[in-house]
């Protein structure tokens, strides 16, 4: 199926929804495709081949000459001989080296690719032998990470240097060499797969000595050629002149044949460029190339949607409004289909001098859009299969030089979090090294004892020593995972570099006696563990802010996973605000032809023309267009394309990805104006905020907006341009709602701006004297649905009470006496399916419903939330909202609204999550509708939405060493562009339980567990969910104790990676959503559950386990600089009253709120300098701001608070809590390590767990 897309629309009974499928699905729909040979025809993109050919026969003929020879293969001939010249002339021994990789090529893909990887890149794909030769030795250098690439470059450019260097290399690895000699035998037994990292380099060396391969050179020559391309990854300047020139020429002839004929044969590179532009011109002049298409592509897409409302609005009155638009949309779709080729061509031209329209369509008949299977390719895959098993082989293209370090790391360093990289590795380093002075054989049982090593630890650590004293057993191992690192490690240690990997690994397994460790919480924030990949992959991997997995080491089989008793799942934040995001405009979005995966950094290039999908292992062709790199303006380096360099990219999608023209941004506000609402006074805030942000609403010139208010009747507002003032239309028939004037209720924002402003000014006072207490929310929503269904968009519902009239009316279900019950909490699920059905209808019409619930009484959020849950909306809840009585809530609403109105938004979105064959997804968490097994339908997507997915392992992953996950989010931007945002995450597969434990991402695991617990409490009961949470800790810790430690201990032992697990689970149990015994209003509880379901991990973690800082003694020690402001970084305190001293002041960051607790005998200096009051007694009870005082400590405190604030989308409210004030209970209930009347303290909880384990 095609990507984030594919299957037909859920409820699309009458209308044609946006076409979500890529060409694969649309293939059928592309019927009209091939027919028109004019450029205007839809043909080009939909059916890639025929029209391209049809269009430019002359082009086609010309290149076909070139292509028939097969550029790649042609190249290889001269270069082979050339390289032969190189190595034979320069150094003789390496010659053998050259050979070995080739053999290896047949043996194990991953090995060979990796081993060759880093160094091989020096060449652009076509000198196989020469550089490979370098590989086995130089790869050591490479991974030492201290050796910049540039030095390599030099080596290669001047052979003399290279030879000079090679002894250096061998000096660096005397031990390694020794190892070769020793373990040649073991090498024979060396598994052929799944050793992607460095040690792989060594076996090559061994093979060299065994010299099995002298004769294989020739036979493998071609193979090596193909293999070598996978490794190609160096910045262009380096490759030896001959090959480059050749390539230039090749590209020249290959893709701009037109200009070739036009301007003659250019001979220099300068000419090349000119030549391109020349061809561009030709293209434009070409009658076929649609000169006028270069006008404005947007315009063409704009027109249809403009017309659609008109037609649809012809039908007024009751619900029949939907049929006509259908037909209309059909027409539109067809109409738009006739234009895409122009659009596409234009996009191609945006590349400047690269004319991709002709070239790309001509030479590669099987570009990624075609669906038919190619036998030939499958055969090739078959040939490869011995080596392909290890798949997803690392693509070592880590030249940082490219494009000014535009790097995923940058992404992670966006506002929300400073780059976490160094955190896990830094301190643990010393620990393992002294611990393993000699390579002890990895025998199993190891006495348990704190300072001594655990078996798992030992396993991982032992190889570490191999750098010092190699011993063959090390390599005979059964633990591919643990052994991936020794190589790297030994290198880095022998080079004096900091070892990153190996140390992180054992550290995370270091056993911690939980009951004895008093300060379990680290002083610094907990960062996501870095997956145990090699450096290159690590750099390329997706930022943990967007994409996290609960286990950074994926267990090999479901059996292993079950043994570990840990949840396996993904946490996604796909539409996060990014400071930097590569946006790619391209004719053909390169995707796997069988599984529709987007090309990503973890695919392997088999040769320059083919790449292997890392999810399904299919071998695909590289389309011609992909050979050109728009960033470096070079040709023939598909591995340097931004798609392959960034794991988070965004594509501008072609019309293949639409079923209808992109919708405009449409916003509808549905406002409660009953007495209750007017009393609460939210209208003033909303109208003010809206009129302030009217210009900042995301959208383009087509943006439309509308208003509906309701009490016991429904009021529409006619805002049609030309009216002197807004016209209110009242519909009192709430049983059968109809739209009075369907065409003038949703109006263009810019045309009717004055009217809208008038309305916003008038609205707060319009209902000031209303006596209507009823609320007909259901009918109002039905009306909103009717209004929105022709276009889709966003409905924002403001509700202040229980709906009491018409469809969807609700009864109060909460029994206040049960609020603190420890037994059963009922009514967590919806009371009626009305809102769910409505949400599904809305979702089908690409409409999302966002709910703002501002009530002071029970409003049955459990039922109301359904309207947002299944339509991919979001939920905001402001308990006991009142604009004067509760100013902090009012302020929060104001700030939230600002963010809500101005934040990015994506319309008619779908998200598809793919994972490597063998894994499967079974349960999704978040706000969306699961349309088919892996396709989430999101009517709207906003940057604050997070998702979670549970995974299971269906097939054993033994034959792969890496697994990848890819999410593709296809959406229409507010500017009417269809875009696809793709994130790819790559993780290693491990076979031992210890490694699984070593890779636990405890925060992700907790968030996933929280999501599962919410499901459980709704479908079963709250107490079940709580039990399940406790059992999760008990099971995982006892499994760890009995399997990894192998000792039955009375002490409660956890690996370091899991040491916070019990604490976090306890925090969850005390969270509003799951707590019992403490009085919790049902709506509060349900809201907390909604938050858990749809918050991204970073925010959810703060909600579960707040951060506590002491702020009365902020210093600049360890401070960081953000935008020339110094932000102090006080250490984290554990959440216990024992940390609070009366002399101090503490800040608690709960995600949605900050509390500053001021101790009774707090230093007056602090109170005066920071809070602005002379002494403790004069601090007011309700204080929500830090005054801007001109003192150092005030500045520090403020910059710290601002920094915390900036890291989250919704600005939290600050509460200054005096010790003694009644508000302090609010603060104290977040101190989760302490005992409350109803719940354990942390220590008690540990004892409880211990008891459970021993049972």
């Amino acid at each position, binding site marked *: *199926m095609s990507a984030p897309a*594919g*299957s*037909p*629309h*859920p*409820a699309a009974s009458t209308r044609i929804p946006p076409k979500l499928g890529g060409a694969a699905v649309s293939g059928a729909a592309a019927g009209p495709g091939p027919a028109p040979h004019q450029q205007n025809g839809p043909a080009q993109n939909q059916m890639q081949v025929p029209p391209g050919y049809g269009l430019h026969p002359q082009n086609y003929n010309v290149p076909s000459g070139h292509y028939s020879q097969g550029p790649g293969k042609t190249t290889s001939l001269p270069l082979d001989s050339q390289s032969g010249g190189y190595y034979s002339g320069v150094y003789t021994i390496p010659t053998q080296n050259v050979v070995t990789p080739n053999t290896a090529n047949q043996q194990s893909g991953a090995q060979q690719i990796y081993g060759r990887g880093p160094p091989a890149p020096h060449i652009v794909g076509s000198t196989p032998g020469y550089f490979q030769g370098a590989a086995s030795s130089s790869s050591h250098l490479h991974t030492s990470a201290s050796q910049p690439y540039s030095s390599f470059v030099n080596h290669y450019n001047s052979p003399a240097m290279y030879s000079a260097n090679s002894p250096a290399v061998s000096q660096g690895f005397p031990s390694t060499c020794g190892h070769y000699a020793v373990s040649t035998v073991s090498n024979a037994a060396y598994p052929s797969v799944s050793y992607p990292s460095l040690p792989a380099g060594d076996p090559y060396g061994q093979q060299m000595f065994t010299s099995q391969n002298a004769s294989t050179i020739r036979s493998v020559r071609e193979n090596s050629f193909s293999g070598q391309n996978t490794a190609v990854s160096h910045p262009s300047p380096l490759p030896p002149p001959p090959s480059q020139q050749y390539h230039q020429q090749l590209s020249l002839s290959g893709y701009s044949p037109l200009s070739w004929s036009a301007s003659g044969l250019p001979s220099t590179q300068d000419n090349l460029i000119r030549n391109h532009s020349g061809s561009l011109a030709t293209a434009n002049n070409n009658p076929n190339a649609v000169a006028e298409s270069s006008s404005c592509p947007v315009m063409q897409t704009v027109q249809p949607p403009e017309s659609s409302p008109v037609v649809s609005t012809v039908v007024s009155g009751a619900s029949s409004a939907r049929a006509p638009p259908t037909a209309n949309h059909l027409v539109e779709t067809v109409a738009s289909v006739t234009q895409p080729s122009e659009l596409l061509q234009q996009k191609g031209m945006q590349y400047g001098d690269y004319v991709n329209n002709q070239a790309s369509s001509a030479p590669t008949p099987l570009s990624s859009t075609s669906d038919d299977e190619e036998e030939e390719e499958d055969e090739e895959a078959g040939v490869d299969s011995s080596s392909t098993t290890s798949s997803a082989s690392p693509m070592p293209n880590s030249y940082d030089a490219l494009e000014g370090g535009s790097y995923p790391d940058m992404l992670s360093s966006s506002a929300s979090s400073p780059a976490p990289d160094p955190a896990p590795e830094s301190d643990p380093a010393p620990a393992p090294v002294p611990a393993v002075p000699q390579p002890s054989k990895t025998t199993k049982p190891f006495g348990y004892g704190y300072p001594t090593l655990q078996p798992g630890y030992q396993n991982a650590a032992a190889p570490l020593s191999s750098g010092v004293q190699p011993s063959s057993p090390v390599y005979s191992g059964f633990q591919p995972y643990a052994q991936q690192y020794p190589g790297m490690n030994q290198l880095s240690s022998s080079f004096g570099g900091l070892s990153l990997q190996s140390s992180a690994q054992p550290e995370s397994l270091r056993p911690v006696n939980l009951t004895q460790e008093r300060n379990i919480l680290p002083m610094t924030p907990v960062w996501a563990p870095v997956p145990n990949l090699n450096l290159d992959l690590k750099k390329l991997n997706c930022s943990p802010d967007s994409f996290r997995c609960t286990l950074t080491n994926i267990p090999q089989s479901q059996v292993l996973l079950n043994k570990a008793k840990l949840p396996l799942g993904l946490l996604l934040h796909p539409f996060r605000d990014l400071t930097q995001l590569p946006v790619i405009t391209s004719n053909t979005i390169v995707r796997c032809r069988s599984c529709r995966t987007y090309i990503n950094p973890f695919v392997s290039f088999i040769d320059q023309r083919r790449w292997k999908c890392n999810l399904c292992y299919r071998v695909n062709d590289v389309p011609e267009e992909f050979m050109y790199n728009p960033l470096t303006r070079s040709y023939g380096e598909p591995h340097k394309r931004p798609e392959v360099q960034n794991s988070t990219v965004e594509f501008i999608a072609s019309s293949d990805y639409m079923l209808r023209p992109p919708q405009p941004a449409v916003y509808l506000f549905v406002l409660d104006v009953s007495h209750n609402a007017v009393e609460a006074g939210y209208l003033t805030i909303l109208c003010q905020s809206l009129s302030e942000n009217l210009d900042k609403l995301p959208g383009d010139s087509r943006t439309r907006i509308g208003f509906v208010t309701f009490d016991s009747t429904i009021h529409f507002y006619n805002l049609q341009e030309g009216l002197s003032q807004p016209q209110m239309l009242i519909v009192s028939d709430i049983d059968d709602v109809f739209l009075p004037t369907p065409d003038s209720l949703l109006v263009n924002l810019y045309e009717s701006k004055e009217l809208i402003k008038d309305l916003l000014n008038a609205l707060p006072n319009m209902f000031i004297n209303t006596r209507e207490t009823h609320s007909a929310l259901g009918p109002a929503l039905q009306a909103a649905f009717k209004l929105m269904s022709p276009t889709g968009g966003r409905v924002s519902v403001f509700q202040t009470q229980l709906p009491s009239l018409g469809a969807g009316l609700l009864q109060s279900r909460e029994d206040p006496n049960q609020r603190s019950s420890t037994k059963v909490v009922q009514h967590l*699920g*919806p*009371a*009626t*399916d009305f809102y*769910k*059905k409505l949400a*599904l209808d809305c979702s*089908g019409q690409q409409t999302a419903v966002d709910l703002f619930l501002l009530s002071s009484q029970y409003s049955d959020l*459990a*039922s109301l939330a*359904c309207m947002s*849950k*299944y339509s991919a909306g979001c939920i905001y809840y402001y308990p006991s909202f009142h604009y004067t009585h509760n100013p902090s809530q009012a302020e929060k609403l104001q700030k939230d609204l600002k963010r809500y109105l101005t934040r990015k938004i994506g319309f008619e979105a779908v998200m598809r999550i793919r994972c490597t064959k063998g894994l499967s997804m*079974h*349960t*999704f968490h978040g706000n969306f*509708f*699961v*349309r*088919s*097994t892996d396709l989430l339908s999101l009517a709207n997507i906003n940057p604050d939405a997070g998702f979670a997915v549970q995974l299971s392992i269906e097939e054993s992953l033994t034959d792969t060493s890496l697994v990848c996950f890819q999410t593709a989010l296809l959406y229409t931007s507010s500017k009417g562009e269809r875009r696809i945002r793709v994130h790819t995450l790559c993780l290693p597969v491990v076979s031992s339980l210890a490694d699984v434990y070593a890779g636990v991402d405890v925060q992700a695991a907790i968030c996933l567990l929280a999501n599962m617990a919410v*499901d459980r409490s709704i*479908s079963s009961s709250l107490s079940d969910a709580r039990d399940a949470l406790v059992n999760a800790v008990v099971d995982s810790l006892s499994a760890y104790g009995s399997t990894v430690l192998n000792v039955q201990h009375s002490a409660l032992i956890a690996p370091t990676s899991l040491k916070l697990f019990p604490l976090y689970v306890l925090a969850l149990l005390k969270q509003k959503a799951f707590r019992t015994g403490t009085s919790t209003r049902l709506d509060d509880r349900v809201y907390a559950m909604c938050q858990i379901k749809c918050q991204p991990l970073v925010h959810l973690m703060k909600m579960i386990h707040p951060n506590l800082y002491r702020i009365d003694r902020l210093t600049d020690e360890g401070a960081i600089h953000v935008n020339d402001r110094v932000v102090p970084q006080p250490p984290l305190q554990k959440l216990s009253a024992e940390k609070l001293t009366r002399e101090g002041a503490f800040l608690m960051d709960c995600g949605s709120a900050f509390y500053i607790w001021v101790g009774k005998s707090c230093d007056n200096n602090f109170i005066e300098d920071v809070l602005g009051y002379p002494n403790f007694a004069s601090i007011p009870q309700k204080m929500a701001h830090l005054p801007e005082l001109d003192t150092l400590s005030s500045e520090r405190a403020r910059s710290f608070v601002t920094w915390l604030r900036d890291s989250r989308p919704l600005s939290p409210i600050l509460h200054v809590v005096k010790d003694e004030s009644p508000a302090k209970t609010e603060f104290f209930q977040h101190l989760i390590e302490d005992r409350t009347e109803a719940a354990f303290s942390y220590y008690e909880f540990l004892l409880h767990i211990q008891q459970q384990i021993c049972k």
Partner: protein
Amino acid sequence: MEAVVFVFSLLDCCALIFLSVYFIITLSDLECDYINARSCCSKLNKWVIPELIGHTVVTVLMLVSLHWFIFLLNLPVATWNVYRFIMVPSGNMGVFDPTEIHNRGQLKSHMKEAMIKLGFHLLCFFMYLYSGSRCPG
């Protein structure tokens, strides 16, 4: 009289077999992405009550006609049908809920259930056939 009972049961059983097959086909359509969850569930929910009634009628009929063994055989399945129908949470759109069918392996368990029922009804079918053919007149 006896014959009439079994002929009726036979027909009813045929209908139930067809229904089970229909359930299986529709669910596997959903599994293969041929239809979306919404339409699948609305299709299936329509037939939950007819199935319930059909099976209850046979069960009651067997009780009335004092075929104890067959009655006891049918009883658990009939009870399960009723239980499943009653236990649908108030917020769900029926036994098959489109928002949940893809979660927690529900699809698989529905499928399994339909398969088991199919087997059961086939068994019953032959039992009725055998019993009917043996009864006099």
